[in-house]
């Protein structure tokens, strides 16, 4: 009996008979080997992350032990406290770096959410000349990565005088095409009658948008938020910001990481600090994100 089947028996037996649960055209051995394979792949995928977390918890003597152990024998938080000591000695304080990153991430994400939702609302629910064409352009913009526009972006930001300010990172983040695309696709699923009913009751467009549409697309908010946070939290922004006191946490942490073999433990701690925020947000909002992604298809 396969593991999966056992689980199903344990879980579902009180509610439904087993036969109903199984799809009739599945072989038991096929299931067994497929899930064995899946479990193996999951282990391989998770291994580097597990290893990174364990390295961050290892004391110094275990880090350089040979043969190396995967799991920390005596887990400590020394690497993290060392990290704060190192950061504390730097000219710009840790809290300032943290503030920079949090500020950029929060403002960029909030602005992106509002601006993209407003655009997505009219694109999804109204027909007007140019709307379809504009949306096509946005989907084309998803087809090339930010590296293509990196250099002209620098020149444009320079012309605007935003180099070496937070705005150089925050404002371009508002216009990320992915957010508008997902929001528009999700809003198309909203019943039009909802909007019409509100209009008959005398609500103007802004009220419809802020009072009716936005509360109904909360799952899509989370999705926009995770994509935006992920991009901004990991933004080194080294090309746009020169002043040390405006640099981001990622930049500062990666400087520490580059400190060679003596900083191995702290480097691992840095990895953990950097990955924990996007993963935590994803874990807490997974079901909402999946709900949004269900409407992410590209139709033509």
């Amino acid at each position, binding site marked *: 009996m396969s593991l999966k089947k056992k689980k199903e028996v344990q879980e579902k037996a009180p509610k439904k008979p087993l036969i109903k649960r199984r799809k009739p055209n599945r072989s038991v051995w096929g299931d067994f080997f497929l899930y064995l394979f899946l479990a193996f792949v999951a282990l391989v995928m998770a291994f*580097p992350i597990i290893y990174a977390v364990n390295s961050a918890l290892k004391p110094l003597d275990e880090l350089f032990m040979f043969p190396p152990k995967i799991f920390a024998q005596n887990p400590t938080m020394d690497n993290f406290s060392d990290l704060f000591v190192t950061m504390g000695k730097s000219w710009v304080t840790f809290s300032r770096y943290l503030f920079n990153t949090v500020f950029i991430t929060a403002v960029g994400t909030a602005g992106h959410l509002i601006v993209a939702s407003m655009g997505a609302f009219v694109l999804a629910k109204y027909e007007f000349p140019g*709307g379809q064409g504009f949306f096509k352009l946005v989907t084309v913009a998803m*087809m*090339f990565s930010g590296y293509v526009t990196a250099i002209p972006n620098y020149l*444009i930001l320079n012309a605007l005088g935003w180099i070496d300010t937070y705005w150089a990172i925050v404002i371009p983040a508002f*216009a990320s095409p992915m957010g508008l695309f997902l929001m528009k696709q999700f809003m198309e699923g909203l019943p039009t009658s909802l909007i019409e009913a509100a209009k008959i009751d005398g609500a103007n467009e802004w009220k419809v948008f802020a009072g009716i549409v936005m509360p109904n697309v909360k799952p899509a908010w989370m999705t926009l938020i995770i994509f935006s946070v992920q991009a901004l939290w990991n933004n080194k922004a080294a090309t746009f910001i020169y002043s040390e006191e405006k640099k981001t946490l990622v930049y500062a942490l990666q400087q520490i*990481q580059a400190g060679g073999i003596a900083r191995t433990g702290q480097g691992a701690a840095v990895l953990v600090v950097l990955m924990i925020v996007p*993963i935590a947000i994803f874990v807490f909002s997974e079901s909402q994100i999946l709900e949004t992604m269900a409407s992410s298809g*590209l139709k*033509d």
Partner: protein
Amino acid sequence: MKEYFSKYVTLRKHNLSVAWKKAKRSKMCYAFLAPYAILFTLFYILPVCTSIFFSFTYYNILESPRFIGLQNYISLILEDDIFLMAIKNTFMIAVITGPLGYIMSFLFAWLINELPRWVRSVAVVVFYAPSIAGNCYVIFSVFFRGDAYGYVNAFLMNLGIIDTPILWFINPTYMLPICMIVILWMSLGTGFLSFVAGLQGVDKSQFEAGYMDGIKNRWQELWYITLPNMKPMLMFGAVMSITQAFGVCDVTMALCGYPSTDYAARTVVTHLFDYGYSRFEMGYASAIATLLFLIMILCNKAIQSMLRRVGT
């Protein structure tokens, strides 16, 4: 002929006036779209246009741009050996990791789809985590360390396959394959999420109809029912993985160094950074960016027209 032409003009005029009237009535829509549209134009459309413009000039930021025609492209393709190497590497990475990552995304999304709910949630996190884990991929430099203490070296030496440690990230033979492994590890990204969500949305009654019609196993079910239902998500996933595959640079720069030995791990984007940010030859860098842009768009269009035929 003249009559036809004048008729065509009247029709166009009429269409335009209708559109204009509609546009006047939907001022509100434009007001809503305006903030996004302005920013989008400023940071996505305008950069592409300026990039194309500068690619025909010599521009180093200090002097004003000087028009030199196709010279940048000619030197790129005919004289710049390193660029050709970068193109070759990028295509190697894209051709191998792009389709493989795409198939992996779909395969795993499809396999975990039948798991019980809570197992599926955990599995999605496990598979998706590498692609959002910041720069966690640098941990691979520990596994593939060049001395005998590196895990892979130690393992292979214990087995007796090699007798001296291999310098994985310094020896040009091994750089690209290892980068590909790392990229594959990170390739279950946005497309994967889209697949997971799309699979849950496939209509259950279609499967039941399938059992009646004699679909024998899961592979037939996949080909005849699931794939045709997933077409829009497949398109979306393809766009994501192509864009990612051609934009590789973080992984190679972090693992193999910048510049890497003999430029063996140089990609188009690394080349772009080199000329744009280190040498300030903006015209030349713009030509690289324009070529990259064309490659990405053409590839996307080609793959989309291919995917349109799935299941029909």
